């Protein structure tokens, strides 16, 4: 495989929560490492509160990671740009946010957003450049003169994408770009992202909890659970042959009319048990399994990509994991719960 565009090594992020008297730390992301190669879409899936967005925000430098390295072209940008991120970095890495209603200033025309992005990053904002930009994302020229409220959600999200593209980035971080959109336009935005990958060789990190769309769009999928990556590999392989019990649990939660009568509670309980109280790891033939170290087992290879899974023996390290699962537990077997805890776990997601 070619040299990755961006490499993340051991990324960790702690948040301080509570008041001045009861201060404590919540670890939202714990020791996460992955690569984002150019021209490929990497999906990061997981439930709310698993730390997906925190990773994107760390990579966009909207949050300061607590530890770890972010290597862009082999240079650790956390070291070279310690406090503030340079404009040069922003030129290479752009972000598209979840809410197209909140991310465009309502008092400006669409033209303004694109012009600003172009000018700030040293491109000239000629009418041709604007026209080309708006056409790339499948909108018409006359929309340049529109205000955000005149556009639909899907169109607005396309404007957000156009704005990100204006600086000709090499990496786009898309944080749930379709979750606020109506069904009728979701696929359109997904197809647009795919086209941009193919035409412009852009690397993308696609963050979502919609497993179907990750399967549809991504080349590589990584599954995140309680701040840690638990499985990764070719998008189809991960979805069709999930190796980690958490991935199976997540998949079993997706409504699927083909499974008549919905999910199988017994099966789900088994997956949950396997995550919380692991007895053995089916992949550790060579004795590498560890309860403390995050060991990765390679369980297969598809399309030149290894399909790896974290050793099952390593129960989720952070408290969040236990709490997140407890919350799911409650309904199926009426287990006594710790509502306090669930709520805290959710707060960290925000």
């Amino acid at each position, binding site marked *: 495989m070619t040299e990755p565009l961006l490499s993340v090594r051991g990324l960790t992020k702690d948040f301080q929560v509570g008041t001045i008297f009861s201060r404590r730390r919540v670890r939202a992301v714990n020791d996460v490492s992955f690569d984002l190669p150019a021209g490929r879409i990497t999906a990061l899936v997981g*439930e*709310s509160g698993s730390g997906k967005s925190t990773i994107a925000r760390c990579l966009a430098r909207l949050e300061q990671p607590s530890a770890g390295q972010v290597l862009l072209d082999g240079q650790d940008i956390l070291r070279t740009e310690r406090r503030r991120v340079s404009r040069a970095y922003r030129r290479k890495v752009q972000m598209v946010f979840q809410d197209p209603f909140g991310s465009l200033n309502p008092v400006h025309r669409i033209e303004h957003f694109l012009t600003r992005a172009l000018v700030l990053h040293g491109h000239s904002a000629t009418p041709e450049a604007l026209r080309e930009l708006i056409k790339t994302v499948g909108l018409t020229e006359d929309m340049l003169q529109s205000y955000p409220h005149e556009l*639909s959600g*899907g169109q607005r999200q396309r404007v957000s994408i156009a704005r990100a593209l204006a600086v000709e980035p090499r990496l786009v971080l898309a944080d749930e770009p379709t979750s606020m959109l*109506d*069904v*009728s*336009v*979701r*696929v*359109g935005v*997904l*197809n647009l992202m795919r086209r941009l990958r193919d035409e412009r060789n852009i690397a993308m990190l696609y963050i979502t*909890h*919609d*497993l*179907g*769309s990750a*399967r*549809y*769009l991504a080349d590589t999928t990584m599954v995140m659970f309680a701040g840690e990556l638990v499985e990764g590999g070719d998008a*189809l392989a991960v*979805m*069709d042959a999930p190796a980690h019990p958490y991935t199976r*649990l*997540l*998949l*079993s*939660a*997706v*409504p*699927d*009319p*083909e*499974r*008549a009568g*919905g*999910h199988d509670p017994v099966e789900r309980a088994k997956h949950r048990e396997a995550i919380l109280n692991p007895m053995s790891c089916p992949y550790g033939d060579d004795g590498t399994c560890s309860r403390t170290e995050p060991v990765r087992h390679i369980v297969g290879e598809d399309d030149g990509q290894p399909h790896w899974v974290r050793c099952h023996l390593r129960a989720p390290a952070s408290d969040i994991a236990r709490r997140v699962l407890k*919350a*799911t537990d*409650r*309904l*199926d077997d*009426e287990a006594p*719960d710790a*509502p306090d805890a*669930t*709520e805290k*776990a*959710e*707060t960290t997601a925000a």
Partner: protein
Amino acid sequence: MEPVLEVNGLRVEYRGDGRTVVGADGVSFSIGSGEIFGLAGESGCGKSTIANAVTRLLKPPADITAGSIRFQGRDVLALDARELRAFRWREIAMVFQSAMNSLNPVLTIGEQIVDIFTTHERMRKRAARERAGELLQLVGIDPGRLKAYPHQLSGGMRQRVVIAMAVALKPRLLIMDEPTTALDVVVQQEIMAQIRDLQRELGFSILFITHDMSLMIELSDRMGVMYGGRIVELADAKDLFAGPLHPYTEALMNAFPPLTGPRQELTGLFDAPRTADSCGFHVGCPEDRSDCSMNIPDLREITPGRWVARSKARSSEGASR
């Protein structure tokens, strides 16, 4: 058996300055006792308009210009303000789309639930508080959380509180307008399981509204697909999934990337504007539908219990298929 809710030929218009938009037109369906009926469709198709019409929540400029709504034989459209007050919540309860935000942020959960019982049941505070605790337990939340403010609960828990409040007075019909749209899959799965349990326990009927076809097919007994203010297909949920007869139903089912099977290129639903005299979907129709370009035709029963919006010529063809 007498249906709980019967909607017949309902037409809702939104009157603007010089221009009238039809929110729903000729909508007819019925919901049986203990039945889960689903209404599917994209934004703007009129599904929320129906929900608001049934609860009489429509405000000007919206206007019900034709049709009838009968709830257990009673004419809902004829209820006066006092009757409405008793009718809502006790007979029909509603869980709204952004239900999580419909809790009052400055009152505790307990105060808000107690309020229902003291107002509608004229209960004493103490008894009401006890009932509130039981109610929370019903949806799997520790009664100790009665003292919590909405912001101290997670999105999923807030949604469960709202559902608990909706079923507090044991309504005969629960209307849920996109109850899980803002939640992730795991929480959504929990809430749906919860709703199924509650329904089994309390035996109410559900009018369930969503754009997520897979979720709807999994939950509903019967369902209708709405498009441009009209129902275009009405059938048993399993039958509809097995073989959609209307091209729009098929398109809506294909609007979500599937979790199984080979990866296929999908095309989004057609985003064409709808006008009074053309069924906008005609443009995006995968098959030739030249005979219904002017309007969405009325529903026709093709096989027993299976209704499709088609003109006569095509329905004979559909039956033979």
